[in-house]
């Protein structure tokens, strides 16, 4: 992140659930046209952090500001793609994608124009009338993505969006998402378990670590945009991936040692 403005400012944020302290002292600034990947072991609070940014839960300490305004509830212009898809089984693809716009009382003409456009954007043209149970996991997540994009957000929060999708589909979706982002760059927080994915998507990769967790390291990927498949075989990509890998492995080994001690 360099010359452009800051969109999300996370300052000294911590979260406790009763006696459980999930994370603490998180400081992070995310630019207007920046993708920040977040990696960390399961249960370290990645989803919780996204919830805090979307105002769905309140941090116990610190403050999050979006465009200078403190987050107290779900802000306008922020959309989430959920780890669990979160599609409504009683709505068709069309109605699921239209959900955010309908709640925002968008004009009918706008909905009629925007919903089909976004369904096409994620490659689901022809599936407008299908119900979620008729879709594969990848198609469901595309629907979730279209629903988020249809509200024309300037902040997109992605919670392991491709985690439960097979490897090939995931790769297709990753590059589709990058293509969409190139055509309308926005501020994006991308939570993932996959180190390759984190490096491929992000301008920076944030490694969360510890218990309670905090930002252990922030790695600038320094990979060129627009990112194509060539990136995957570039020396820089491998270098960054190995670096992040060693950071996380260290963590995993330590967790293993702790477990042994407990035993």
């Amino acid at each position, binding site marked *: 992140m360099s010359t452009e403005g800051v969109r999300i400012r996370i300052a000294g944020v911590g979260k406790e659930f009763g006696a459980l302290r999930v994370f603490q002292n998180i400081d992070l600034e995310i630019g207007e046209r920046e993708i920040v990947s977040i990696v960390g072991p399961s249960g370290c609070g990645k989803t919780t952090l996204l919830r805090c940014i979307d105002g769905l839960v309140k941090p116990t300490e610190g403050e999050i500001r979006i465009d200078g305004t403190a987050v107290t509830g779900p802000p306008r212009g922020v959309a989430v793609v959920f780890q669990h898809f*979160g599609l*409504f089984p009683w709505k068709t693809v069309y109605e699921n994608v239209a*959900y955010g716009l309908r*709640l925002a009382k968008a004009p009918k003409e706008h909905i009629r124009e925007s919903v089909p456009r976004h369904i096409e954007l994620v490659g689901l043209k022809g*599936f407008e009338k*299908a119900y*979620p149970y008729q879709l594969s996991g990848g198609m469901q997540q595309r629907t979730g993505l279209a629903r988020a994009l249809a509200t024309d957000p300037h902040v997109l929060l992605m919670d392991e969006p491709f985690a439960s999708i097979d490897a090939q589909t995931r790769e297709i979706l990753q590059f589709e998402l990058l293509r969409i982002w190139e055509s309308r760059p926005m501020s994006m927080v991308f939570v993932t378990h996959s180190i390759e994915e984190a490096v491929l998507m992000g301008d920076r990769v944030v490694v969360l670590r510890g218990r309670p967790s905090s930002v252990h390291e922030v790695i600038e990927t320094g990979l060129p945009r627009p990112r194509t498949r060539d990136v995957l075989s570039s020396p820089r990509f491998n270098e960054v991936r190995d670096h992040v890998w060693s950071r996380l492995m260290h963590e995993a080994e330590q967790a293993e040692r702790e477990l042994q001690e407990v035993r």
Partner: protein
Amino acid sequence: MTSVPHAVAYPRPWRLGAGTQRTLIRIGTGVLLLVLWEVLVRWLAPPFVARPVTVARALPHVLANHVPAGTPTFWGSVEATVIAVFEGLAIGVTGGALVGLTMGRLRTADRLLRFYVSAFFAMPIIALVPVMTLWFGYSNTVRLAIVSLGAFLPVCLNVYDGTRSVPSSFVEVAQSYHARWWNVWFGIALPSSLPYLLAGFRLAVGRVLVGAVVAEYIVNLKGLGSMIVFDSRTFHQPQMMVAVLVLAVLGVAINGVADLATRRFLPWYRRSE
């Protein structure tokens, strides 16, 4: 895409499809029962006891409104009962869904009401008919109150259960898209409880039919219930059996229509797990 993936049907050594087979078996059982009824009554019972043959013979007369002078016509009775049943279902299902939803989403409403709704549900509400005649007189209002209550209670408790078990992920999505409380109640909690509402509706149909007939017996209102009492007391057993049959058909038909409507309008139902 509109086609729904079907389970693979394995070829069977039988000629008939599984559905046809099941229908044939069902019809066979029915015929067997009718024959058994006919034979046993002829063999053991006095002649005025209804048999399938006498019922069949009475059927055209009853359907043509040939009834003893001074009693309500058959179709008049059917109409009275059917209208009461549908009014009761309309009032009870709507009210039950609204109160169940409120109890499911508002802790205060839950604490205030659930104990009493459960208690009423466990109680045979037809025990209230005599009391209600004191309140409402010997009028149609008693029947309407009983059938409405009969539909209200099971729907209310089922919708309550449904709205308590709305996946929190749905609510989270709604909130993320700035849903207000009424959007969550009516846009999320209610549709996601529809399977529960349908289960409640099935119970309601049974209870409403029982409620209507018993209220008609006791309060002596025009309807199939009082027709059954009158015909059986005057030894018109075949005529009485026609009324019983109509009630059976009514119950099966309402549930059948509900099933069809579910398949037509809620294709996602039972497939979303």
